[in-house]
């Protein structure tokens, strides 16, 4: 023997080939008739056994007030905390002294979906969403502007709550 292959001794008395084969065939035959676990995706997006987690962090959504304006006060905390530097914010101020975002853009390709922007937001304006269907035909469509962020309707993430780590 040129190379040192270690050969395990098989316990002859406990060896079984024919029975093991038949057992295996019986098992696969049982599985043939079991209910299937496949979810038929485009038609079926959640099942009894599986649904998207409420803590899922997907593409953003900007919440609006009763007049349909973005809740954002352009405080600048979200671009400050964003680790991917994907939020572009240019603040403006109206004649009453209320701050509002002149430009608010999120580059969803740069975003790492950490959810810090939602955590840091004092007005509960920007949120990450429970959402995952984001296909577009061009790359520049992935820079979401304020109008687009306000128009999103998907549910927002509940994020992880340190006082309730298991989400109960």
């Amino acid at each position: 023997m040129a190379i040192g292959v270690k050969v395990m001794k098989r316990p002859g008395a406990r060896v079984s080939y024919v029975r093991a084969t038949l057992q295996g065939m019986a098992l696969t035959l049982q599985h043939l008739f079991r209910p299937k676990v496949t979810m038929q995706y485009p038609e079926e997006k959640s099942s009894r056994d599986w649904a998207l987690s409420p803590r899922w962090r997907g593409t953003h959504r900007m919440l609006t007030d009763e007049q349909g304006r973005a809740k954002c006060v352009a405080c600048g905390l979200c671009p400050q905390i964003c680790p991917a530097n994907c939020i572009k914010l240019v603040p403006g101020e109206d004649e009453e002294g209320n701050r509002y975002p002149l430009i608010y853009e999120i580059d969803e390709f740069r975003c790492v979906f950490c959810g810090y922007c939602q955590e840091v937001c004092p007005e509960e304006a920007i949120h990450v969403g429970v959402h995952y269907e984001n296909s577009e035909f061009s790359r520049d469509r992935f820079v979401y502007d304020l109008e687009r962020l306000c128009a999103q309707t998907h549910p927002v993430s509940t994020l992880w709550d340190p006082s309730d780590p298991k989400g109960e």
Partner: protein
Amino acid sequence: MSFFLVASIIKIVVVFTVIMVGVALLTLAERRICAWMQDRLGPNRVGPQGLLQPAADGLKNLVKEETLPAQADKALFMLAPAMSFIPALLAFAVIPFAAPLPTPWGDVDMVVANLPVGFLYILAFGSLGVYGIVLAGWSSNNKYSLLGGLRASAQMISYEIAMGMSTVAVLLLMGNVTLTDVIARQARSLFTWNVFPLSLAYFIFIVAAFAETNRLPFDLPEAEGELIAGYHTEYSAMKFSMFYIAEYANMVTASALMTTLFFGGWDIPFTSWDNTPPWTTLKTLATLAMFTAKVICFLFLYIWVRWTLPRFRYDQLMALGWKVMLPLALTYLTVIATAIWFLHDALGWTYDTRFALALFALNLLLAMPLFFVLDRGRIVAGSVAEA
């Protein structure tokens, strides 16, 4: 004469079409059944229940790029898929698939070519199939392909011997190699189906048939884990598809052969209505349905075994072929020949149900120690002899 020609051409076209469509559906059946066994659904998007999936696959293969490796032996590389595809389809020509069909110009045998040497013809063309695989492996100029081709040749030659030996038992009992006669002799009752008097021959035959068709647990020529698909690594598009069709056509032929040799062919059990003249169209259709049902059962067995058992190691495969199957087939042949001589010549029995049952009892007696040894035996031992 002209009627014979016309009838033959019609039969060729119909059988060819049915086999090609059957092979297409079989690829779908394989994928769906394997999915079901793994608690999945499988391809069900194209057409109702995925029935048009093979058409989509075929279309894809037609428009894909044909690749030709720079260092390949071009002539043989092009020839190899045809070399494995054609024998796979040719073998079906001698298999009778229904009772004769009455027409105004006389009865038509429901077999493409009712050759007197029918069974030998199948063995001959079955062996030809290996050329396609070996040439594919060699001409690709790829070491994995070459290994796959070499494995295929060694494996198919080894198991062909056991297969041939197991069928000699059938020929001994039937006294004929013409498949129509083999069916006629089996059709007397349920117990004269060869699977009863020759159960062990059937066992050897089915194991060898799995090896001959390169199906798991004997799919070493294309072992994807070790040989990255072996002999068809370098093939793409329709040339790859032809190997694929050949594999499934071989399965269909092997299933049809098992049906014919061991399960009474198109014979419907428990009645002699189907195999006695006068022939009617209804009898032809009923026997055709019976034949199809039997073949489908074997095809299902093929798929079932493939998605249950793991692959043998190469030396285990060779050991099983030469050290177990071949001596077993030879011994069995000796025993069964002696038994037939004893029953036929010494006791003077003619071949009927009693004769078959006596042989069946003998088979059961032989099967018990055999399966005990196979079960406890050390067939799948370590790769090195213990010092």
